[in-house]
């Protein structure tokens, strides 16, 4: 089944530069409906009032981290099926294990390339 690239994508990162990079990379693979949040709390608020087909989030943010955001999303009956990709510099085994236990759909370690981003999105949305 082809991926619906008109879906709303929420990208979450406290580095504005990173949001800009991810937004541009998504645009290059034809995801044009991209919204941004600068931390987990703002993202959760947007998710609860909007309609998103994919969340791409950093981990290391304050006051709500990406992991806490993921846990909140998975605990919310309306949001729990939303595909969630973590993009983070946290590359220790325990981080990946914790993210998986919390229900992450896929995990990308920074620095990443466009090919990896495209590949993971296709995998996640293909299984959504």
């Amino acid at each position, binding site marked *: 089944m082809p991926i619906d690239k008109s879906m709303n994508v929420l990208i979450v990162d406290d580095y504005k530069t*990173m949001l800009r990079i991810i937004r541009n990379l998504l645009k290059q693979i034809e995801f044009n409906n991209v919204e941004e949040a600068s931390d987990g709390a703002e993202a959760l608020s947007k998710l609860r009032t909007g309609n998103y087909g994919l969340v791409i989030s950093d981990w290391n943010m304050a006051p709500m981290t990406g992991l806490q955001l993921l846990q909140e999303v998975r605990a919310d009956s309306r949001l729990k099926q939303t595909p969630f990709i973590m993009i983070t510099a946290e590359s220790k085994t325990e981080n*990946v294990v914790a993210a998986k236990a919390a229900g992450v759909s896929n995990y990308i370690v920074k620095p990443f390339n466009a090919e990896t981003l495209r590949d993971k999105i296709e995998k996640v949305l293909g299984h959504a």
Partner: protein
Amino acid sequence: MPDSHARRDVLLAERLAEIRANRPQMDTELIAEVVRAVLTTMSDDLSVHDTALLLEVEELGRTIAAAKQEIAALKVDDITGCHIPFATDELDAIVAHTATATNAILESCETLDTVASTVAGEAADRLQDATTRIYEACSFQDITGQRISKVVTTLKTIEEKVARIIATFGHKTAALPAVPSAALTPEEELLNGPQLPQQAMHQSDIDKLLASFD
């Protein structure tokens, strides 16, 4: 003779009490002075072993006093008052400047992307490939920002420890109370930031790890 010993003990006790009252902090020079006084007044009553021991104590006092002078000569106050704040300010400036430069690069790259959408064929593909590489490369700013934050945290820890050394050996400020390390929550223990390249897991390792759960 016993009377003179008792009188000497009383005088010594009085001297020590006076030091304690006036200088609650350790003062190595006063300690050395007391040790010298003890050695001078009691050497007749001491065995060779006791004398050697007290000489070592006196030497220890001198070493501490010398260390104190050396630390003062190092101007350790400058480390906390000047050098570390300067270093952290410089690092903050690096982050700010690289962010500005990265955003300028991204703006130009977005212009190239717009141009690419107006052309067709191989030229468009080549332009997009080039801008993709630029976007990827610009993510360095996020990683370096996180690394610099880790360095700033380390510098602040050093600053705190140096301040504690000054407080212990110096005479200007009272000794700081020991600050216990804050216990990290399980969530906080997972916030380590970027690993050094030789220690970091690669994307392929993470893919394998994730696949192992399926």
